[in-house]
C-alpha cells in the first residue's frame, strides 16, 4: 500500500469483502445479474454452486487434454513402429517387427504422460499463471483470501463500472468492507 500511495494511482477495480461462502455466492449472483462481465469471486477454497451463480460456462480444459492424449497415443505408436520396424528392425526371438500388442504399455504410459502435461500446463495457461504482478496483491486486506476471506472484485474496465452504482450494488449485497484496488504504474 505504501508504495501505491506515493505513485500516481489508477483504479484497477473495486474490492468488496463478504462474511462467508453463502453471502459471497449471493453477492456473486447479484453482480452477475447486474450485467457485469469483468469480475471474479475470490475464496480460500472452491465454493459449490459458484459457477452457476457467476453464470460461468464449463471449463474447456478437457479439450486441451484430449488433444494432448491423442498426440501422446499416436506419437508413442509412431515412435515404436518407426524405431522397431523401419529405422532399425532387429529380430528379437522371432517376434514380429511391428509387434503392436507389445507396444501397448508404452503407448498407454505416453498417452497418460502427455495428457497430464495438458491438464497441468493447460490449467496454468487458462488461469493466466504464472502472474506475480496482479494488482490485487497491492491490497493488504486481500491477503486474507487464502485464509478465511471472501471477496468480489469488479474491474474498472468493465462496461457497467460506475463508482457510485458499483459501490451501492456491492454494499447492498452485504459487503462488510469495500475498497479500491490500484495499479502501481500510471498507464
Amino acid at each position, binding site marked *: 500500500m505504501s508504495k501505491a500511495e506515493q505513485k500516481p494511482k489508477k483504479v484497477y477495480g473495486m474490492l468488496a469483502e463478504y462474511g462467508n461462502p453463502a453471502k459471497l455466492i449471493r453477492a456473486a449472483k447479484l453482480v452477475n445479474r447486474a450485467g457485469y462481465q469483468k469480475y471474479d469471486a475470490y475464496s480460500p477454497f472452491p*465454493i459449490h454452486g459458484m459457477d452457476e451463480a457467476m453464470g460461468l460456462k464449463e471449463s474447456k480444459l478437457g479439450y486441451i487434454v484430449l488433444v494432448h492424449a491423442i498426440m501422446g497415443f499416436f506419437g508413442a505408436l509412431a515412435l515404436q513402429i518407426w524405431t522397431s520396424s523401419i529405422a532399425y528392425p532387429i529380430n528379437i526371438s522371432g517376434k514380429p517387427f511391428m509387434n503392436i500388442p507389445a507396444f501397448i504399455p508404452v503407448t498407454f504410459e505416453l498417452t497418460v504422460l502427455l495428457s497430464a502435461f495438458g491438464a497441468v500446463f493447460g490449467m496454468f495457461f487458462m488461469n493466466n499463471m504464472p502472474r506475480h504482478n496482479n494488482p490485487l496483491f497491492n491490497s493488504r486486506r486481500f491477503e486474507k483470501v487464502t485464509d478465511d476471506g471472501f471477496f468480489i472484485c469488479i474491474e474498472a474496465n468493465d462496461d457497467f463500472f460506475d463508482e457510485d452504482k458499483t459501490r451501492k450494488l456491492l454494499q447492498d449485497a452485504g459487503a462488510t468492507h469495500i475498497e479500491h484496488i490500484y495499479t502501481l504504474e500510471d498507464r
Partner: protein
Amino acid sequence: MSKKYEYVPEQPLVQGNHTFSSITSLIGDIVERPTPMWWYIAFGVSNLLLAMLLGMIAYLVWEGTGIWGLNNPVGWGWAIINFVWWVGIGHAGTLISAILFLFRQGWRTAINRFAEAMTIFAVMCAGIFPAIHVGRIWVVYWMFPIPNQMQMWPNFNSPLLWDVFAVSTYFTVSLLFWYVGLVPDFATLRDRVKSKFGRIIYGFFALGWTGGNRQWQHYEKSYLILAGLATPLVLSVHTIVSFDFAVSIIPGWHTTIFPPYFVAGAIFSGFAMVMTLMIIARKIYGLEDIMTINHIEKMNMIILVTGTMVGFAYVMEFFIAWYGGVEYEKFAFINRAIGPYAWAYWLMFLCNVFSPQFFWSKRIRRSVTASFILSIVVNIGMWFERFVITVTSLAQDFLPGSWGYYSPTWVDVLTYVGTFGLFFTNFLLFLRFMPMVAIAEIKMVMPQADPHYYDENGDEPVLTDKFAKKPDVNA
C-alpha cells in the same frame, strides 16, 4: 417387520471446533515456528544414511555388481526387491489422492498431501535400483529412445523397457499432481509468512494464485482430470512391474494372477507406510483434530481388505500350480513353503495375511499403538513377499544341477538402509518447509464451506446440527 432404522451421521471429518483461520494457522504455522531439536537430530541421521547410500553407489559403480550377493542362478537380488518394495509403497499416495478423490471420500483430504509426498520420495528411492543395477551406469541412457551414433533403439518388446516408461511417467505425473495440489497452499503461505525471503520463495511457487473462482473452475477440472489419469496409471505401473516377472518363463513368476496381486500388495504396503508416517506426524505436530482416529480406522480397513486380497492371491497361486499340473510350477510352490527359503515364506505369510486379521476387531482398528506396530509388521512382510518371489524362483528353477542359494552381502544391506536416508531426508525437508496437509481441501470438507450451511440471511445457523434441515439459500 417393525425394525426401526436410524440415520447414523458420519463423524465430522475435522474435529474440535475449528474455523477456517484456525485451520490455516494450525498447518501454516508449522513452517514458521522455530525448527525443533528433534528435527535436526532426525535430519542429521538421515543425512548420514544418505551419505552412506551415495558411498555404496560410488563403490558399486567403481567395482561393479560383483560386490552384491548375486550369483549364477540368482541374477536378481536385493536391488529388484527394493525397487518393487519402494514403488509399491508409493502407490498408496496415488490411491489416496486419485482413487479416493474419484470415489468422493472426503477423509482423504487429511492425509493426501503427505501421502503424495511419500509417493514421490518412495519412487525416487525405487528408481535408484534399476538405474544402478545395470552395471555400466554410464550407458544407462540406452534405456531411453535417444538418437545416438549407433542408430540403435530400445527393445520395445521388453517388459523391462515398459518399466522404464511406466516408472518415469508415474514419477512425473505424481510430481505434477502434487504440485497442482500445492499451488493454493503455497499462496496461503505466501500471504502468511513474515520473512521476506519466505514470501518470495512461496510466492514464486504459488505462481500468482489469487483464489478467484475463474481460477478455481479450471483448477478443479484439472484436478479431476489428473485424478482420472492417475487412477489407471497407478494400476498400470504395478501391472508393468509385475510383467517384469510374469512375462518371463521362470516357474513361480509366469502367472497371470501377478498384475492384480501386485497392485493389491502395493496398496497394502503403501497404506501401512502412510500409517506409520501419519501416526508419528500427527503426534509431533498436534494434528489429531485433522488426522483423527476415524481416519486411522478407515485406513486399517483398507489394510485389512488388501491384506486379505494378498492372502487370497498366495493361496490361489498354490492352487493354480497344482491345478495347472506343470511339474516345475508345482515344485516351485512346494519349495517355497518347505524349501531352503521356507523361513522367508512363512514370515511373509505371518506378516501379510495373519497380522492384518487383527483389524477385524474395532478396538484394535482404533488403537494408535496397535496400528503403528501392525503397519511396520506389514511393511516387513511386504518386503519379504518380494524376496520370496524374486529369490526362490531363481535359486531353484528347472535343473537341480544349476540350483544355488542366495544371500546378500553387506553392500546390499547398507545400500537398502541408505535409501531410507534419501527418503527421510526428503520427507523431513517436506515436513519443515511445505504445508503437510492440504489446507484448501481441508476447508472444503468443513461444514462451514457449504453455502447451504447458513440460514436464509446468510448468517451462521443457530442450530449446530449439520444434518438438520436448513433453508436453501440458493433458492
